[in-house]
């Protein structure tokens, strides 16, 4: 569905992505692992059009996304749940959802989708008129996911949805990710929590220092010794 080849994105002279190539298949979850500073968020921001790559291509079902504005990329059916959620703090939960449907014109469809979000995220229904800035971190994460879904994306990008959340809330977030997967949503997930990611993702990439260093199935991931030590901690070898 999404094909990224030889992508290079730089901040000034520093290349954060040094020729990244990967594929995301439709209808399942692909997960990108990697340490802080590997370039995961840069990759997400480049796909969403916030950052412009220096070279390379990003094709969604064959159509080139590089060079399009972020608004045009949303119109193509890509929605990003950004790192740190970035909800609109001074808007109510409901208005955040409306903003998520900014490019849609079908009022009835938008209202129906908002009701659907309230069913999927009951906590948001309870707080529909509350300002998003006053929600807890977990609630803001749900809102960020619901806001992204409001654009009816073909591809949902999620940048570390478990970041900074309590373990119980992380479990809740992954329950939602699994739900979305069951509905057939294509998801590209960035995570540092490899244990949780292993439960939902069907394909894994590992990025280090701007390069893809692993590409494989969950089974292959679990067998890779280096990854085991660094991300799964099964050997308890290093502190």
């Amino acid at each position, binding site marked *: 569905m999404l094909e990224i080849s030889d992508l290079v994105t730089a901040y000034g002279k520093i290349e954060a992505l040094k020729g990244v190539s990967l594929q995301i298949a439709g209808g399942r979850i692909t997960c990108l692992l990697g340490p802080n500073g590997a370039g995961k968020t840069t990759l997400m921001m480049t796909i*969403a059009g916030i950052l412009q790559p220096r070279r390379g291509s990003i094709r969604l079902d064959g159509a080139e996304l590089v060079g399009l504005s972020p*608004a045009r990329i949303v*119109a193509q059916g890509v929605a990003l749940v*950004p790192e740190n959620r970035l909800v*609109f703090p001074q808007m109510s939960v409901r208005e955040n959802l409306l*903003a998520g449907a900014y*490019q849609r014109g079908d009022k009835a469809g938008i209202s129906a989708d908002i009701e659907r979000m309230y069913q999927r995220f009951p906590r948001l229904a309870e707080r529909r008129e509350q300002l998003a800035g006053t929600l807890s971190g977990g609630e803001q994460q749900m809102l960020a996911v619901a806001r992204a879904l409001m654009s009816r994306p073909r591809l949902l990008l999620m940048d570390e949805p478990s970041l900074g959340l309590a373990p119980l809330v992380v479990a809740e977030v992954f329950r939602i990710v699994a739900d979305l997967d069951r509905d057939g949503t294509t998801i590209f997930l960035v995570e540092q929590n490899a244990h949780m990611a292993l439960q939902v993702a069907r394909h894994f990439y590992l990025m280090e220092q701007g390069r893809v260093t692993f590409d494989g199935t969950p089974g292959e991931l679990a067998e890779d010794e280096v990854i085991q030590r660094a991300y799964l901690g099964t050997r308890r070898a290093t502190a």
Partner: protein
Amino acid sequence: MTDFVQNTLDGLMIGSSYGLLALGFTLIFGVMRRLNLSYGPSIMVGAYLGTFVYVQFGASPIAVAALAVAGAVLAGIYVERLCFAPMGPGAGIASMVSSFAIWMQLEQAAILVLPRHTYPYPPLAAVAPLMLGPFMVRLDHLVMLVAAIALSTGMHLLLYRTRFGLALRAIIGNPVAAHLVGVNVRTAMLGAFALASGIGGIAGYLVLAADQQVTSMFGMWATIKGLIAMMIGGLGSIPGAVLGGLVLGIIEMHGQWYFGSQVRDLIAYFLLFACLVLRPGGLLGDAPTRETAAYGRRA
């Protein structure tokens, strides 16, 4: 007592023109998180366009008003394209400094075209003051008050009831997230700039029609009054802008009455100073926080 009420009334009406100036200023600041020093000079360009046509061809007050607004909007768009659109994230200072350069450019251009110090400006209508018992109300001042109420209400409706308003509030809330939900941020910012300059153009026209004269210093006057009213009311707050303007107008009028007209501007600066020390966020604004500073960097 009569004097006190009369001064308050006058202040209220003068203050409503300050409130209108602050309204445009605060819209630009809220959306951009950057200061547009060329805001007043853009209004001055519109005013000079109006007076030029008035002096050369004897245009009607309505034509002058329309030109004042149109000129301000065009100059505003020019400033946005030059000083704001090309500057990337984190270049807030560059925008401010370049808007200062364009201020000087616009002022010099106006002086080249109309070199005299003062030019006449057509009054709104035959000015017969309205008597309310012992109190006198100038009709053109009353129009300022009505315009301030109407425009701030209109702006509120625009922000909370329209798609364009939703886009602006999304940008004010978080520019990156606004991009991510599909708002065309650059277009929306240009729209906000044009709208703000248009509101400023209306305010400028009403002030000049009441004064019946214009000088090239009007740009500086409008920037400073708008800026002070915005700071007093609260950065980025729409009700705050109007309230700040009214407070500034009323205190100026009382001060002028007790201490003489030469201290009027001194009082305005003192009020700004007191406000920054006692309530740095303004009357209705939030005190600046690390978080708002961070939004500024992202914008």
